[in-house]
């Protein structure tokens, strides 16, 4: 009995404080979690709207699994872009792959027939500032808007304003440029196949 008394005498403050802090944390969590979740949804919506501006709404159409270039499965959320009248005008999904320094996460958008790429946005990347970081800038990103949804080739020289399956690399950032092209080339065929299987797009495309 005296052992328990000694224990309580030494640690009552610790127990009382733990209880108090626990309540404080639980309270803060309960109050702010809905806002945090909403922030995450807002961020994704904003990125997707900038790729398909005509869309009024984005609906989660399903969660697929794509294999990365090394065979590691990446869970991918597929979003349907809906216009004002409810028609599907495109699809958006997130994908990722290895970049120069770290992983690059992208949001890719394609048109409703999976024929053309609407563009991409970088969700997170850690590339070298001033070099690989320029994959976020219009010079590189605009080359993807309207490009065919087939295999893309990275070229070192060429006309970046011409929209076709050739992507001109950023000077001094060949590996980062190539990384983005590889991510797109890896994700598109797998997604196309899985979407056909689910009947989301017609066969013969």
């Amino acid at each position, binding site marked *: 009995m005296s052992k328990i008394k000694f224990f309580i005498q*030494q*640690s009552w*403050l*610790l127990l009382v*404080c*733990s209880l108090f*802090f626990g309540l*404080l*944390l639980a309270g*803060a*969590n309960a109050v*702010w*979690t809905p*806002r*945090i979740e909403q*922030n*995450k949804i807002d*961020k994704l919506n904003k990125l997707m709207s900038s790729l398909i501006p005509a869309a009024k709404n984005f609906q989660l159409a399903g969660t697929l699994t794509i294999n990365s270039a090394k065979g590691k499965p990446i869970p991918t959320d597929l979003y349907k872009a809906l216009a004002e009248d409810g028609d599907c005008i495109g699809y958006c999904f997130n994908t990722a792959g290895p970049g120069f320094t770290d992983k690059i996460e992208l949001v890719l958008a394609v048109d409703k027939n999976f024929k053309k790429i609407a563009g991409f946005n970088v969700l*997170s990347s850690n590339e*070298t*500032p*001033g*070099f690989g970081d320029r994959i976020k800038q219009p010079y590189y990103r605009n080359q993807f808007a309207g490009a065919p949804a087939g295999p893309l080739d990275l070229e070192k020289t060429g006309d970046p304003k011409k929209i076709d399956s050739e992507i001109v690399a950023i000077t001094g950032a060949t590996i980062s440029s190539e990384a983005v092209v590889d991510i797109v080339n890896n994700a598109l065929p797998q997604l196309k196949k899985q979407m056909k299987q689910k009947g989301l797009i017609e066969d013969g495309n």
Partner: protein
Amino acid sequence: METNTQNPPSIYKQTLLAGLWRENPTFRLLLGMCPTLAVTAAVKPALTMGLAVVFVLLCSNIVVSMMRNLLKPHLRILMFTLTIATFVTIVDLFLKAYLPKMSETLGPYVPLIIVNCIIIGRAEACASKNPILISIIDALSMGAGFTISLCVLASIREILSTGAIWEINILPKTFVPWAAMRMPVGAFITLGLLLALVNVITAKSKSLQTQKNSK
């Protein structure tokens, strides 16, 4: 700053000014180096981190000062750590809810405030020995000193790496940005040079003081 042996107004003023220059946590005490180097790539994240540290310092100093007579010596550090961890979690949740972009930029450095030597150091050195008012002033002063030093470092790095401060362009467009300032290299070297500058200023003011005293 341990015990109140002088008349009240003077000790408060002394505590307030200490954190700002004489015992500035970054430049004189060399505490809390990790966030100093990590978040000072631009002024916005630096200011956010500084204010977060002020909040945690304030809350933890108040709580520790309230408990100071009840603490058992060998459970002391555990109590400090528990308090600090709770308040840091609250700050992290707040940032995620109201400033999501900043929260993403700061990333894992917000929870690293828990092991920031400044906060545990002040809890040990000041809050556990002094009444609430002095602890509050000490927290505000150390926090302000830390925030100011972060912002100074961040302004230098941001101006040289992007030509802008707080994303407002200041330098002319012909300025070629020094990308190295955004990378770890720039952080270490700028901080090293700033510390050297502080040493120069301290040495000069000391020599002026001895000259004055010998007259």
